[in-house]
Structures are given as C-alpha cells and as structure tokens.
C-alpha cells in the first residue's frame, strides 16, 4: 500500500515537469506556478482514478488482474497465468520472443550521456532505443506507467505516458497491463529528466522482447532499518556502487537465500547489483596478472587437463575414462610438471591460468574445480620471485582500489572488518627459526631423524596442537607452523625456507642444509602463493619422490607420486628456474570481502538438493562380509528404484588380538570386498551406497567391546581420520554403528559416536549414518539417539533378537521400538538362517505393520553372506514388497542432507 502512495507522489512530480516547460520569471513564481499545476494535476489524477475505479467496477471480474494483485498470487498460479497469456498471444500469431530489437545505446551509455540534463529538461527531438530488464513497475493510471529499466547493472526510469505512445489509449492500457516485473523490454523514445532529477526515457514504442514467466523474488517489506538498507541497496546507481577492497554484506541483499543465490546465479545477478561487481573484479584480477606477465615477456600456454598421471601436487584426483582409447585418465591437480617440461624445451618464461581439479570435500575455501596461475621463469630464483610477487600484488591492489589497503570481514559480517595492508615490501618469516622463536623450541637439525619426529610430537602435545595420524614429521611441522606462524600472517607475509621433507619439488637451500628455497605467501592467515627455486637435479628429484613414497606407505595420502616422464625431462636439463603458483579464487575472495569461495565462483559445486528417482526414499539395507567367506556384490539383486545400502561388516578399532586401537579403525570385512569392487557396484547402480559398519560382535574369537576411551577427544580425532581415509579408499557414503557390548554406566559412547558422526557429516566425509541396536543395547543407543537424532538417518534395530517368531509378536516389538526411536527412521529387519521370525512369516509381519498404520520405509537384512546360497530370496522379496508398498514414505527423512 505504501508503494501506491509513493507512486502517486512520484507521478505527480513526474507529470508536473511536463507542464513546467514554460519559461518562468523567477524562482518563487516558478514555485507558485508549479504548486498550482501540481494541484491541478492531482485533481486530474484523482478524477482519473475515480473514473478508473468506476470502469473497473463496471467491467467487473473480466479485467486482467493488476500488478498489485499479481503479487498476491502464489508463484504457481502466477506462472500458469503467464503461460496462458503467452499461449493466447501465440494463438493469434504474435511471437512473444521477437528476433531482433535494434539497440542504439546501452543503458550505461545513456546514463553517461544524458545524466547531466537539467532537472525537468526533455529532448523531444532525440530518438534513442534502449533495452533491458524491468525490475519495478508502478501504474499511476491506465495512461501512465513507471518502470525501472536495468541494463548491465545500471538503472534508468521509464515513464510510459499514453500521450507519447504510438498506440491508442485502449491498446496502451491493455499492453501495459500485460507487462510484468522481470520482463525484458525494448524502448524507443526520447530522453528527459524529471523535476526531481530522475533521468528517464519517455517511450514512443514499448515492446516486450522476452517475458519473465516467474514471479521475481522481492525484498520482503520488513519493519524498520532493515527495509531502508534494502531500499538503499536496490536503488544503487553506478556512482555509489561497491568497489574492490570495500566491505560487503550479503545479509542486506534483496535475494539473501544462499542456496538460491548460488544455484540460480542469474537471479543473484539480476537482483543483487553488487554481485556483478564481484565477477568484474575477478575478471580484472586475471586480466591484471595476464598483462603483468605479458609485459615481462612470459608466454601463455595451455597444458592438458587430462593426464595419465596426476602429478605436480599432492591431492586426490578425479578419474575418468576415454572410451575409444580405453584409457584411464586423471583430471590434473596442477600444471606444474608440464610447464617445467616446456621450460626444458626452451620456452624460458611460461605461464598458464586455468582450472585445477581436486576430488575433495566442499567447504568455505574449497571447490572441486578452482583457478590458479602458475608461472616458470628460467634463470630466476625464489628471491627474484618474492620481489616479483610484491610488485604484482601491491600493484594489483593499487590498480583495483586506488590504495594499498583493503577492508575484510575476517571475523564475520557482524564483527568489524579488519584492514589488510599490501604496501611492499612484505614481511618475511623464516619457517624453522620463526617457529623456534615463537614456541621457544630447539628442533633437531636432522628433520628426517626419529629424534626430530619425537621432538615435534612432544611439542604438539605440549601446546595442545592436534595432528591426526599419520604423524609424519612433515605433518607435525605443518600443524605447528599453522598454529604459531600462519596465525600471525594477516598482512601479506612470506613464510620462507621450508624443510626438504615438506617440499618434494623445491631445490635444497644453497646455504642451509635440510631446508629448501621456498616461500608461501599468507594473507589473512590463508596461503595465497607458493613458489620455489625449482629442483632441477634429476637424481635428487628421484630421491625426493622415493621419500614421498615412504610417507604414502605410512598412510599419508597426500604424499606425491613419482612421475617418470617428468624425471626423464629433467635429465635433458632444466635451467635454473623459479616457479610460482597463485590461487586466483582466494585472491578474488580477499578483494571482494567474501568469506565463502562460492561468492567468487559463478556456478559453485553444490550438494545435490535431493535424491530423486528412487521410490519415496525406500531403502534396502544389507550387511555383507561379516563371516569372512569370499562374498561379492555381484549377484545381490538390486532394484533400481530403491536405495540400496551395503553395510561392510565390519570396521574395527582393535588389532587382530582384540587390543583396542583408540579409535583407529581398520577394515575387517571379507577381503573380496575391495575398493575396486565397491567402485564397480556403485558405478553400475547409481542407487547403491556403501557404508562401513563399526565394531560388530567379535573379531575372530575376541569379543569386541566399547571401551571407555581415556581421552574421548583423541578417540574422536583418531576415528575421524581413520574413517576419512577408509571412506576415500573404499568410496564409502556412510557409517553404521554396531557396537554390541558395553561396560556398565557408560556415557562416553553417546558422546564419542555422536560427535564423530556430526564431524564426518559436517566435513562431507559421509552422507548417511545409521545405528543398529539390539534388545540388550537399546539403552546405550537411546542415549546416543536422544542427543544426536539429527545426524542419524536410520535405526536398523535388530528385531530378530527380540525373541518374536510370529507376525503379531513382530508388530508388538515394532510398536515398542517405535515409541523409543522415531517410527519413520525405524526399519524392520530379518536375519537369514538365523534367529527370530523366519521364512515368509516376515513378509506377513511387514503387511501387518502397514495395516496397522506403520510406514515400512525399508528393510534391513543380515546378511548377504548367508543369502548367497539361497539365491537372495529375502532380498528379492523385500525389495518387491517395498516397491509395491502403497504407503507414502516420509520425504523428510528420505532426503539425506547435512544439517
């Protein structure tokens, strides 16, 4: 309603300037004249309004809904009514999507050219044609409409007056009633400025070029200051737009919802005008780097993104397959080795700006594909590169922002922003010396020694610095450096001279044994650049790769693999070379005050919104591999329309003698269930998930107990790391909890397991977590469930231990457990050739459950090991049952998402 009043006021102002063309002798006279005219106009308008209302009354409901009413429609109604309108246009032979509209000027140029018109000035003789999207529509009367037209992020007002139009009044009114917020329109008209100084265009011709069929999201009218902030944001003109180095607050955006902003970036760009500046800034950063390097005589090259070996960095690659060549290919994780080969080939200065790919989790600073710049410069060393880095980055900041300092919300948008100063030279911090000074340590000089490892282990313990296993010297050092040095690097700081064990591709330091000539540039505690004097001695390079192999064998997945082709290239001779890499996304984040990498990627990778296609989220769960007999996935019948979860039985945190390993889990399932087998079954069946079941009853003859860990935090950390590594190796999607023996009065189980699952889910290591209580352990599992039900997807209670053999008994047991756990998460279960209900009576029981109002959302079977001999009768029949089940699954639990 407030909108209407405002519109009327504006229309008054707008109209009055039309009539104020006559020369005025003095300001006062002019004012008087104006007031008079204004009053006349108001009168005229009021009368018009009256007439309109009367007309509306008489023509009753046949009138099209006005735009105000549109906003009251629900989005589906709105969409349907627009589709109808389009169809009726097409039916009479009008193409609602014209081929071409000749634009004589961009909106940006228009504002530039006519922005200096005097208030109230009109250039009736000038004809301009503009096009853009309508982001606001206000009808003053059926003869006068106001629109906000946006082109390339810049706004101009459209004042469509029937008197200017080439249409007659009736046609004009009908046409404009059909124009909606969000439509793309073309306008031919003349420029002018309203009395209030608003630059406008006055259309003669007004054509919808591409209708917007959806209701455009609008800022919710919230009381108080919030609304003002939003208004301010919406009405921003290019002169007061955000520039790099300034702070931003997406909380004030018209479109705030992150999911929508990232998934439908076009809406984000349309509605939040700052967003286009982010991507312009990103383009400017890249362009600056390119010019900087071009000016130094560097050559831009392109190296393969798909390789036979993923080298040049330590990270998990994406794997793909070339069909015709029948060749396994890896997506590159770094272009380093190829670029150095080009330097061997005689291109002395090369660079590549491009995408790298790492098969890692998605979080605030990681996206599976990201952009880097790497350059290699023959005859230069890391000292030269530090100078070059200072020159490049400070120059970039200066060009983008006009100064050397930027503002950044390092502690969240609700806290004050910090200032980051790029004035060169940047601080330099020797890694080992710095660490020794800050932590008061005296690290043994021979870092490859056991003594050094022991010393650093103790240091980590002393300062409570966590280093999950494997605790290699390199990893321990990295954690300590992260804790002591990186934390101090808010303004750009070079951490230099890394030890050899951390830097397999860097050259040994010319004067300090055990170290390398390497630097990393940290800004706001994050690594932005990594560079070194390149190791070009092929013999030493091979030794380093061998050292990395040792770390890989001790469990460090991030150690680097040997690339024989690269070593051969080095044997042809790589000149002394300095090599340098920069993360462009990280830099773009800094300059755009973004705390999330998704802010600077047009289309960031997103978790799937839901799991479609499977029937109502029904799930079939099957334990496999528990008996150790060579069982396999192939042969297990898998219904395409049902989610199928294999539970690998079991992962156990005990050594073969049964001695507890303090949370370090190892796979103890049948050795036939290899990572390759898991990968294969998942590749063939997109609906299959594979999970590790933790603990189980026994290992060999040793009964497995939950032991109260002395240090629960350490247990959790160990369990997290070991399960993360298992999940990567075996392509796991989740874990099942199957501890079956508990000490008396234990509370640690609920805490440790609950925290573990939460952590695994939060870090996207797993997507599913289930628990498997039996009648004796229900208490322990209830403890867990009551506190952590949010992260537990299913309760596959072992009903076969509940000592019921008849369907009616089964129903009773199910009712009892459904009172304890949430009924929709509870799955009926069956033990093949085992205890409890046996044979087809189980399916009778399932029917009974349904007829008593329970939704059978899935079935758990123990286990595939026993079923293989009877042709998987129960698996087949259970899935058939689930498929034909008429009850609707609960969508709430079927979509497995974090949080």
């Amino acid at each position, binding site marked *: 309603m407030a909108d209407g009043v405002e519109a009327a006021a504006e229309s008054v102002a707008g109209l009055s300037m039309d009539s104020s063309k006559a020369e005025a002798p003095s300001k006062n006279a002019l004012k008087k004249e104006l007031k008079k005219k204004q009053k006349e106009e108001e009168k005229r308008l009021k009368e018009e309004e009256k007439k309109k209302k009367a007309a509306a009354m008489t023509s009753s409901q046949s009138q099209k809904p006005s735009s105000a009413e549109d906003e009251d429609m629900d989005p589906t109604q709105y*969409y349907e009514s627009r589709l109808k309108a389009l169809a009726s246009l097409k039916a009479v032979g009008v193409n609602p999507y014209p081929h071409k509209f000749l634009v004589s000027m961009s909106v940006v140029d228009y504002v530039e050219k006519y922005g200096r018109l005097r208030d109230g000035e009109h250039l009736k003789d000038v004809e301009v044609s503009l096009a853009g999207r309508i982001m606001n529509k206000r009808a003053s009367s059926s003869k006068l409409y106001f629109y906000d037209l946006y082109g390339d992020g810049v706004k101009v007002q459209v004042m469509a007056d029937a008197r200017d139009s080439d249409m007659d009044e009736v046609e004009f009114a009908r046409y404009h009633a059909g124009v909606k917020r969000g439509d793309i329109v073309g306008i031919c008209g003349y420029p002018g400025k309203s009395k209030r100084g608003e630059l406008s265009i006055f259309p003669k011709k007004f054509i919808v070029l591409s209708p917007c069929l959806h209701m455009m999201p609008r800022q919710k009218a919230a009381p108080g200051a919030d609304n003002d902030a939003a208004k301010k944001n919406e009405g921003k003109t290019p002169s007061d737009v955000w520039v790099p180095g300034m702070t931003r607050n997406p909380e004030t955006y018209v479109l705030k919802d992150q999911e929508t902003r990232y998934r439908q970036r076009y809406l984000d760009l349309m509605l939040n005008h700052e967003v286009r500046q982010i991507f312009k800034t990103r383009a400017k950063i890249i362009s600056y780097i390119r010019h900087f390097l071009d000016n130094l005589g560097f050559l831009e090259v392109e190296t393969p*993104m798909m390789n036979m070996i993923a080298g040049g960095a330590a990270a998990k690659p994406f794997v793909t397959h070339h069909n015709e060549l029948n060749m396994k290919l890896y*997506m590159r994780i770094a272009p380093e080795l*190829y670029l150095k080969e080009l330097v061997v080939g005689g291109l*002395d200065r090369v660079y590549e700006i491009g995408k790298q790919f790492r*098969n890692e989790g998605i979080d605030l600073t990681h996206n599976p594909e990201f952009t880097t710049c790497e350059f290699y410069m023959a005859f230069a060393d890391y000292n030269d590169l530090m100078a070059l880095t200072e020159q490049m980055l400070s120059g970039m900041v200066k060009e983008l922002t006009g100064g050397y300092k930027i503002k950044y919300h390092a502690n969240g948008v609700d806290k004050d922003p910090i200032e980051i100063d790029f004035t060169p030279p940047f601080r330099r911090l020797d890694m080992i010396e710095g660490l020794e000074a800050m932590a008061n340590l005296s690290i043994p000089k021979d870092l490859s020694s056991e003594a050094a490892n022991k010393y650093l282990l103790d240091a980590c313990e002393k300062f409570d610095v966590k280093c999950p296993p494997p605790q290699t010297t390199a990893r321990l050092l990295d954690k300590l450096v992260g804790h002591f040095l990186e934390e101090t690097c808010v303004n750009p700081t070079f951490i230099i001279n890394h030890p050899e064990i951390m830097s397999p591709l860097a050259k040994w330091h010319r004067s300090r044994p055990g170290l390398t000539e390497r630097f990393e540039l940290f800004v706001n505690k994050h690594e932005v650049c990594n560079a070194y004097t390149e190791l070009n001695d092929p013999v030493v390079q091979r030794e380093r790769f061998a050292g990395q192999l040792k770390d890989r064998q001790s469990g460090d997945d991030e150690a680097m693999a040997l690339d024989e082709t690269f070593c051969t290239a080095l044997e042809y*001779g790589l*000149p002394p070379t300095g090599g340098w890499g920069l993360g462009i996304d990280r830099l773009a984040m800094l300059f755009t005050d973004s705390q999330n990498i998704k802010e600077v990627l*047009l*289309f960031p990778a997103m978790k799937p919104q839901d799991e479609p296609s499977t029937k109502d989220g029904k799930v079939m769960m099957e334990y496999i591999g528990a008996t150790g007999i060579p069982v396999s996935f192939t042969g297990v019948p898998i219904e395409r329309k049902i989610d199928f979860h294999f539970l690998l039985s079991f992962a156990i945190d005990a050594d073969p003698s049964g001695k507890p390993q303090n949370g370090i889990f190892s796979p103890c399932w049948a050795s036939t269930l290899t990572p390759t087998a898991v990968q294969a079954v998942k590749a063939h069946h997109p609906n299959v998930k594979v999970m590790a079941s933790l603990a189980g009853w026994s290992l060999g003859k040793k009964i497995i107990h939950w032991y109260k860990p002395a240090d629960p935090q350490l247990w959790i950390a160990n369990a997290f790391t070991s399960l993360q590594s298992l999940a990567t190796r075996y392509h796991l999607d989740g874990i099942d909890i199957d501890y079956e023996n508990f000490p008396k009065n234990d509370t640690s189980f609920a805490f440790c397991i609950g925290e573990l699952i939460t952590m695994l889910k939060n870090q996207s290591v797993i997507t599913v977590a289930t628990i498997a209580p039996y009648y004796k352990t229900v208490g322990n599992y209830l403890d867990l469930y009551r506190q952590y039900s949010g992260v537990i997807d299913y309760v596959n209670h072992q009903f076969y231990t509940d000592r019921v053999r008849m369907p009616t008994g089964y129903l009773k047991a199910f009712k009892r457990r459904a009172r304890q756990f949430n009924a929709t998460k509870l799955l009926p279960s069956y033990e093949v050739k085992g205890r409890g209900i046996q044979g087809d009576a189980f399916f009778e029981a399932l029917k009974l459950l349904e007829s008593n109002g329970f939704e059978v959302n899935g079935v758990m079977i123990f286990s595939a090991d026993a079923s293989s001999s009877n042709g998987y009768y129960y698996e087949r029949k259970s899935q058939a049952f689930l498929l034909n089940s008429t009850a609707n699954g609960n969508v709430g639990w079927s979509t497995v998402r974090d949080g």
Partner: protein
Amino acid sequence: MLALRVWKSSSHLITLVSRAVPVNIRTKTRARVRCCSSPSSTAAATSSPIVTPGTSDRRRRSSSSTSDRDSIRAIRLKKVEELRSRGYEPYAYMWNRSHTASQLQEIYSNLANGEECKEVSVSIGGRIVARRAFGKLAFLTIRDDSGMIQLYCEKESLTEDQFEQLKTFVDIGDILGASGSIKRTEKGELSVYVKYFEILTKSLLPLPDKYHGLTDIDKRYRQRYVDMIANPEVADVFRIRAKIVSEIRKTMESLGFIEVETPVLQGAAGGADARPFVTYHNSLGRDLYLRIATELHLKRMLVGGLEKVFEIGRIFRNEGISTRHNPEFTTIEMYEAYSDYQSMMNMAEEIVTRCALVVHGKLNIDYQGTEISLQRPWRKETMHNLVKEATGVDFSEFGNNVEDAKEVAKGILGIGSEDKDNNLVQTCPSVGHVLNEVFETIVEPTLIQPTFVLDYPVEISPLAKPHRRYAGLTERFELFICGREIANAFSELTDPMDQRNRFEEQIKQHNKKRAALVTGSKSAEGKTEVDDCSYEVSLDEDFLTCLEYGMPPASGMGLGIDRLVMLLTNSASIRDVIAFPILKIQQQVSS
C-alpha cells in the same frame, strides 16, 4: 615479430627493460657440427652411422641408441659427482642475464667481421646445441628463448681451470651461463668472447640426433620438449598460438565483452550433442560430467544481465582422436544480447582477420599449399543452395517426406543398401538430417575459401531460433575454411516452451538411434557404433527454468581456437598446435 622484454634482476633491484627485436635470427642456417655426443664421452664416440630410414633399421637403431643413452647417462652422472667434488654445483641457483641472444644479434648487427667490443661486458644463458673444440680454442653455440649466439672460448682469456672444465665437463645439451665481451669472428659469426662461464644445468641425456631422432613422430608428441629442443620452429607454433589467443581476447575486451569462467564439472553435460567424459566426486557421492560446451552456462549469464560475455576454455569430448580431433580442445564462446546471427558473422570476420593480420601481416595466407584469401566480405550461402549447387537436388522440395529424401540421398552418396554407410542415412529421423549428411559428405570438403553456410534445418539445430522468414529453418551459420568448420553461431532460441520441445525431441532421437543401433547390428563394428550412443542425454531443467525468467534476444558463437591456430600456422594436424596432445597408450615393441 616478437617483442622481447628482458627482466633484469640484481638482488635488491628490479628494472624492466623492453626492446623490440626481430626474430629472424633463428631461421638463419648454420653449419652445425655434431649434435648427439660430445668428444669426451668415450662410449658415445662410436656414434652410429647414418642409416637410411626403414622399419627394421629403425628398430635396430633404437635398441642400440638405448644402450648409448644409458652409457652417456652414466658418464654424465659421474661428471656431476666429479664437479661437486671439485666444489662446483652442476645445478646452479640462478644466473643474471644482461641480454638475450637475439638482443645481442640486434644490437651488434653492424659490427664488422673480426671486430671486437672489448669494453662491453655481457652475460647470456642458454642451452648448448653445438660445439667444436680445437687445441686452444672452442666454439659453442647456445640457444635461448629468443635465438642463438656463438660463444668464442679461448684458452688465454679463461682461467686454466675453466678451459679444462670446458673441455672435460661441458656437453652438448648442457645449460650454460657465460659472460664476456662481444666479437664478430673473421667468418662473420657474432660471438660472446667468453671470460667466465658456469655450468648452470648439467644434462644427463643426449639430445636427439637431428637426422634420426625426429623421424619418430610419436616421440615428438610424447616428449614435446625434446621436439622443441631439436626443432626450434616447433616452439614458434606455440608462440603464435599465444599471440592468437591474446588477440582474440583483446578484440573481445575492446568490444566491451566480459570474460567469465563457467564450470568444467557438471551434473549434466549439455549444449551440444557429444559423448561426455564421466567422473565421480567422492564427497558428493555422485557422477559428474566434463563439459562438452560452455553454451548453457553462458546463456544463464545473459539472463543474469551480463549483456556481453565470453569464455575461452577447454572443452572435453569422449570421442576418437584424429588430425582434427583431440579429446580436450579450446574454444571461445561469446554471447551478445540484442544482436542476431548477422552481427555474429561480422564478429567472425573481425576475429579471424585480426588474428591473421597479427600473425602474417596480410590476409592472403598459405595453408598446406593452397592460398586462402581472408579478404572481407566472405561468401554467404544457404545450406540448401549449396547442396543444390553441388547435387542438383533441392531438398526443400521433399517437405516432410523422409523416405524419398533418403532414397535420393543414397543415390547421391552412392550408397547401396548393403553398404555399411547405409545406416548413416537410414537412421536419419528427418529430412533435415538427410540434408546434413549430404552436405557433410559432398559440400563440406569443397568449402576451401571462407564461407558462411546459413540457415540450417531446425531438426539439427536444437538451440537456434526459428528463422524469421523460412519455416523449418533456423537462423544459424557455420563458418568453413579449408573444408573445416571453424565457427558455429546462431540467433539464440529464447522461447522456453520451444526449447523444451526441442530438447525432448533431441532426447527422443538419441534414444531411438541408440535402440536402432542395438537391434540393427550385432557385428563387431556395430558394437563401437552402439558404444558411441550409449550415453544418456538428459533434460537440463535448470536451464529451462532460467529461460523462463526471460533471456534477451541474443546471438552467440563458438569458435574452435585449435583449428584457427592450425590455419594460421599452416599446421596439418591438431597435434601440432596442442603442446601435449593425448596419445594412445604406448605399445611395448616386442623384440
């Protein structure tokens, strides 16, 4: 001509010096004495005699050169140790160069034969590509990024130790830093009169023999760096490539286009009809596809209000390799709001001619013996007319009668019903497809001079806008030069309803073709064909939703950068313009 800029650095100060230098030095022919082995390497002294190329000989030679290689490597490794024991580091940290080779050639081009500039002191770095040693005199030729220059090494002007080192430890292939004055020899060779040198990098493997090593085409691609060391002109292709990409970028930016990056990994691969690569993201637990085009994401940007966008980037298609196809290749795609395909023709001419001028300085260029004239305007002709011109058949007369069109097409293409090509025509679901088959086979190879082929049938153009005048056609063109498609452009389809129908039709066709191939042929050959279509094509609902928010009328174009570089560098194969092309897995030669 290349503009070379030298970056001079001392420990605390950076200065930038730039100077334009012509690059023709490299092309000067020069007598080169021995390339493979150094006189001091005794094992290699029995250098293999020149053998006439032939398969049996080649195998023999390769086996013998393997053992040569190993012994040379062993000897050079010993030299590395020996140097270290004498206190020299055979892998230096850096070298301050005052000039590049071509800069010296340029600066001292007027120096007379036999003349010396005693007072100057220059330093230079590069790889030794030739050497001749006499008693008290040694000539080395070194090459850097810019070109070559001779080193004049005289026993008297070096320390005793250094001259000894030169003779015993320096091999062809080593990277050397040298400083001294400038002298032009009596024979007219500009040289650095060496007063001091350092081995910067000791090479362990011998450079390929100029006359033998390079006949191994496979090795040229597998070890591109060896190719580049042996054939400096190879590197020129990549220099020109960089220049072309840079020129394209400059053109786009000058026209107000903004460069963006859209994802390579996608939930569904759309925007073209091609078999995608599939990969798996562990933590998301789902399959991802490598993009086969950037089209659908760039159009989303138009909807978002970026009116002129482009992306230069890698595209991936899981298809065979040939002289024209590499599984990953580079394209530019551009989209401009409020324009139509007519304006894209202008854009295509603009880009290609600007690139030609920057590379060749003229618009008449040679490609594999044929002169191509890029003078504007280029020929424009509709697809129907071109086919009619070549075959006498006007396909527009068939209306919707596919069967008649197929019969006529088979006649034109000379396909019998038993032919294995029969399937090609037989599986065509529409007249448009039949027309396209005829066009690709008969007309395409004849389009040598630049030609815009206009107005493709709607059935084979699922993303193009219907023609404003001719029903059944679209506002689309492809640009052909030398019988190859260089660019593909259209007035973009903006109607979401129409787009949905087209996508659905495309999926139906794909599935039909797949089904037909599965039932139609069971031979081994048939199997690969089935394989070609065995991937799923899915509807990109997100894109359709995006169109429903309204995309401005626009046109877009995709242009193959590798093919443009091939044209402008006179390269016969795409592998010549891609630094590291994908190759088949190396077969182990059985003995």
